[in-house]
């Protein structure tokens, strides 16, 4: 039986889809059987970030409504044998599936895959309830901004009321320079408010944008700081004790870090 992890944030644009794609790919990189599920019906992005848009035949809604079997809707990744994606429908909206239907689909996937990563839409309405319905665990993504932290807090509150295990936090798009000059919330500030376990910090990295536009998850590129951060998160999910990334080093420090961990 696999493990279903929902990636959520409340606020839009903090990097849920990027995080889903990269953690999923990093887990596949570690040799795990992984399936990514996009629940952002009507505004799907995961397929674009993964570069799998042109391979979609059926989608989540088709499976829910019985127009196809689950296996038919899964899109196999072009890089990894054991990485699959269940795309969302683009022509429907969130209300076209119910939380129960998503739960059944996730349950079905758990028989086949070791990790199921569910990309949650922004907001806390129907789409959010769909996304968390089948999840065992949750990863909350936030950025070091007050608005994002506020929304993360709201979502953590909702997750605590649900059946999902206590959520873990990813702080995305950290800019060490800004934190140093006091213009950005630092990790401690955020943890003090949110009061949940941190599973990773990801530095802001231009390579992420580049990679997303090319349909190739950043995690594939070992020269990217964000890639190392995502690989670390994946290893922590697998149960390794990986120390937090040191962000305030000079450029080039990531290389040393990588050498230290023997990656790349």
């Amino acid at each position, binding site marked *: 039986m696999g493990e279903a992890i929902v990636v959520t944030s409340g606020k839009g644009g903090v990097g849920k889809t990027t995080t889903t794609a990269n953690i999923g790919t990093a887990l596949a990189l570690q040799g795990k059987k992984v399936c990514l599920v996009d629940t952002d019906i009507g505004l799907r992005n995961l397929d674009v970030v993964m570069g799998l848009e042109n391979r979609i035949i059926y989608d989540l809604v088709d499976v829910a409504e019985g127009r196809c079997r689950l296996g038919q809707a899964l899109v196999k990744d072009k890089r990894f044998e054991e990485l699959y994606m269940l795309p969302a429908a683009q022509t429907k909206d969130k209300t076209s599936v119910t939380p129960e239907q998503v739960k059944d689909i996730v349950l079905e996937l758990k028989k086949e895959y070791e990790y199921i990563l569910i990309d949650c839409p922004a907001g806390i309405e129907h789409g959010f309830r769909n996304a968390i319905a089948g999840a065992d665990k949750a990863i909350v993504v936030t950025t070091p901004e*007050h608005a994002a932290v*506020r*929304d993360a*807090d*709201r979502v*953590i*509150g*909702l997750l*605590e009321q649900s059946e999902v295990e206590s959520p873990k936090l990813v702080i995305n798009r950290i800019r060490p320079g800004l934190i140093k000059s006091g213009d950005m919330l630092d990790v401690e500030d955020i943890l*003090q*408010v*949110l*009061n949940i376990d941190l599973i990773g910090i990801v530095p802001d990295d231009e390579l992420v944008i580049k990679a997303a536009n090319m349909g190739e998850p950043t995690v594939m590129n070992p020269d990217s700081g964000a890639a190392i951060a995502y690989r670390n998160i994946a290893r922590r999910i697998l149960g390794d004790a990986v120390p937090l990334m040191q962000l305030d080093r000079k450029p080039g420090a990531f290389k040393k870090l990588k050498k230290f961990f023997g990656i790349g």
Partner: protein
Amino acid sequence: MTVVSKHVRIKGIKDGLVFLLDDKCPFEELLGELRYKLEHSHQNILTGPIMHVDIKLGSRLVTDEEKEAVLEILRGPGNLLIRSIEAQNAPKPVNESSLYVMSGILRSGQVLNHKGDLLFLGDVNPGGTIACTGDVFILGALRGMVFAGVEGNEEAVIAASVMAPTQLRIAEIISRPPDEWETRESSMEFAFLSDGVMKIDKIHNIVKLRRDLNVFKGV
């Protein structure tokens, strides 16, 4: 020797005595004074013939043991026949009058409504709200909103270990930091209304506002 009567008053009526016992002071203090009074004063009344006695406890909430303790003292002189013992106002339901304790993290979008006084163990995050008819005491960081005295109680106070709220309300008054008041960090503080204006002070000064609180003066 005359006793300064603070908590015990004895009134004579046509066919007996009425003992009016203060309902605000600590119970032990009340018993002490009652004992002292019976032993050191009113000898002329207490050594006389058998007397009917009514005891009035005011709105104090008493247990059976406490009632028994009062009766025990009054039986001492031997000539007092207790006719009735009553608490004038019906005691309030326990859950409304006593301090209710809750724990957790109040997160953005969550609202905690409570009737009575509340002790909250944990943080109140920005966007979280506590609304209470009585006082609110927070052992943790207050970063969200607290509304004390929701039904118009201007005596209500709000106290927090870390006072950094987005907004505070007591009865009708709404106040927001830091433009209206500044909090001095690293010491527990409380907010209260003084002449319709919200003020912040250190927690030990709460006794200046609340005379009915039991004060610790050392052992």
